[in-house]
């Protein structure tokens, strides 16, 4: 990756962290309630984002829930 694309990536990530998702998102409680279904749909390529609207946006905005999504996906898909 070039220096300029690294800087652009850092800028975009900084803005994403501060501004969060632009679209409607689930709450942390709703995310946890749907996490197992969303992960299985993701693994099975079962249109997870269509089946669980607002989940991708929440995972984009909440680092803790995003970590738990990656953990569960890695664990059951491993």
């Amino acid at each position: 990756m070039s220096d300029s694309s690294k800087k652009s990536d850092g800028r975009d990530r900084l803005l994403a962290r501060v501004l969060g998702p632009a679209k409607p998102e689930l709450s942390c409680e709703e995310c946890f309630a749907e996490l197992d279904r969303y992960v299985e749909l993701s693994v099975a390529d079962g249109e997870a984002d269509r089946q669980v609207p607002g989940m991708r946006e929440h995972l984009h905005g909440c680092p803790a829930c995003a970590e738990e999504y990656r953990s569960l996906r890695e664990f059951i898909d491993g």
Partner: protein
Amino acid sequence: MELPADTRPQAAPGRADGASQDLLRRLGTQGPEREEAVGELHVLLLKAARFEIGRRSAGLPHVRGGDLDDLAQQSADDALLAILDKLDEFRGESRFTTWAYKFALLEAAVKLRRRAWQGREVPLEHEAWRRLSDASSAERGAEDSELFAAIREEIENLSDRRREVLVAVAINEVPIDVLAERMDTTRGALYKTLHDARRMLRAGLAARGLRPGDGEEEKP
């Protein structure tokens, strides 16, 4: 809610979903059959907790192996209690084991994040934004400078509570459950505060004609 048959998650190859359903059935019985099922569930939860702790242990070099296994045991114990308490809430929209694993992974993740921040001060000051934005926009044009200056002004216009939460979580990268514990509140309540702060920032920027990052969200 019942999923259409063609979108129902399939069991991964080699993993029998029947075993997961049988475990759930036996947890609903009484006596030795239930006790045996509870023991089997605890073994599965411990495996999940150890997985989570193993993948994060590099970030905790000061925690000894024995302490890490204690954390895994505590996580499995706490997850087991939560699952047995919420068994009626399982809706059957995933395998029972997938549903159960998320409790163990959550318990382990929360315990690890709290351990990592034990004894550390939670930074609430928003000078970090000035440093970050200066570094990020140092070699950029006037448009970026205007955007970052506007964000700084909008952050300063937030209420104290919203500014503290936004600065800690989004700028200083304090884990939200660590901050929730320090502020004596819940993760969900704190995320709502963060969400409101972000919404107000976006509204303030939009009023200035600035609409950064309104595109599709990336894959998590």
